[in-house]
């Protein structure tokens, strides 16, 4: 415990670095996945193609991706951009499926009603489909956020600093406290992100507070399984 107090400045700094590496992939993953997910939901052909491709992307082990990306992007091996791009790819891989499931969870009758009261395709997307897909999107983003925060530390193995530094340093110095401190800090970040996502969801979708429909809950469960 005294080690944690003595080294709090360093832990805090690494925590901030970790957060800095985690936020861009989570945000980018969402922005890119929603349109892809919508396209996947809308057309049967694109659904199988997009879900297959995103499924394949998710099978690439993170360490491999961190190492291979510089050769593709032309970045240096130590560039944090490799980690950010790799984690964005994972976020998309997980999130496209959730987004497609989310849009599919909107009852066709609801969509027809929206059309009947005069919504055009674009307006209906923003005012009806996106909000109703919201709970499944949030469920998907919670998975994305947790896995991003925990995977970022793998980047430390190739020299991109984050809380993962504490794991490697702790192992080299045979000092479990340092590793534990890193694990706890990672979990704290993950919990804070998770709570933030839930709060954002409640703020944007006040109607979900009274309990979601069974179908959406099932879609959310599938999201958990797919991950």
């Amino acid at each position, binding site marked *: 415990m005294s080690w944690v107090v003595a080294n709090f400045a360093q832990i805090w700094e690494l925590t901030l670095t970790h957060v800095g590496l985690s936020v861009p992939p989570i945000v980018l993953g969402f922005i890119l996945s929603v349109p892809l997910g919508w396209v996947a939901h809308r057309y049967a052909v694109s659904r199988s193609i997009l879900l297959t491709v995103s499924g394949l992307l998710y099978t*690439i082990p993170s360490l*491999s991706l961190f190492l291979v990306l510089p050769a593709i992007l032309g970045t240096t*091996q130590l560039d944090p951009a490799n980690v950010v791009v790799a984690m964005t790819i994972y976020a998309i891989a997980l999130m496209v499926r959730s987004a497609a*499931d989310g849009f599919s969870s909107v009852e066709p009758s609801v969509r027809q009603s929206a059309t009947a009261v005069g919504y055009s395709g674009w307006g209906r997307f923003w005012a009806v489909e996106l909000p109703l897909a919201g709970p499944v999107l949030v469920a998907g983003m919670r998975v994305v956020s*947790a896995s991003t925060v925990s995977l970022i*530390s*793998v980047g430390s193995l190739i020299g991109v600093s984050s809380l993962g530094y504490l794991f490697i340093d702790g192992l080299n110095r045979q000092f479990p406290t340092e*590793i534990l401190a890193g694990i706890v800090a990672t979990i704290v970040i993950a919990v804070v992100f998770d709570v933030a996502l839930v709060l954002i969801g409640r703020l944007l979708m006040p109607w979900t507070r009274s309990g979601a429909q069974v179908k959406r809950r099932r879609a959310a469960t599938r999201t958990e*399984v797919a991950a």
Partner: protein
Amino acid sequence: MSLFAAAFAWLFDAANWAGSNGIPMRTLEHLIYTVVTLIAAGIVGVAVGLYIGHTGKLRGAAVLVTGSLRALPTLGLLFLFALWLGIGLTPVIIVLAVLAVPPLLAGTYAGIEAIERSTIDSARAMGMTEWQILARVEIPLAMPLIVSGVRSAALQVIATATIAAYLPLGGLGRFVFDNLSLRRWDAVIGGAIIVTVLALIVDGLFALLERSVVSKGVRAARSRGLGEAATKRKSVAVDAA
């Protein structure tokens, strides 16, 4: 891109395919770690998943556990266990199993949960015991999602077993870590490529398995295009694939 050419040259160099440090041996080690972990995690994850799915008890706890385990940084956990238990296969298997249990658990209970309640009620009404319902109705119908859970678990384990090689153990990660400090990028990327190909092959095999474990009755009903239940199962099976 020339780095890729170098990596492929490394991959196809016969010298890298021989001996205890060769690609076949490292791949075998990697697969052994994966299989041992999946068996260990499968016993726990599937059993608990069946209990939760069948009884409906502890579902909230399962969601919480699977969710929070995902946020646990595997790297830190691995190194922590390595310090506690000494560097060896035990900490690696434990940590990989911790990683593999949540998808197995979630796949199993979600598989049972997705079954129409009326199907299970009918089985009960016909006089089946709870064990018979589990063995003859719930497990066969949940099988595609259970296999889907095993598939995600296998992928996570294959990916993470790579990291385990940072502790001086075997597996495909050795190509990465042994050569990283030497800046021999052809071997590093070559190793990364093998892991990826292995993950893709295993994923493909499980995809086929998922399709083949759809129970006979469901497949028959589906091919005849009968009933709402058949269509529902189909969508679940497709989703799992």
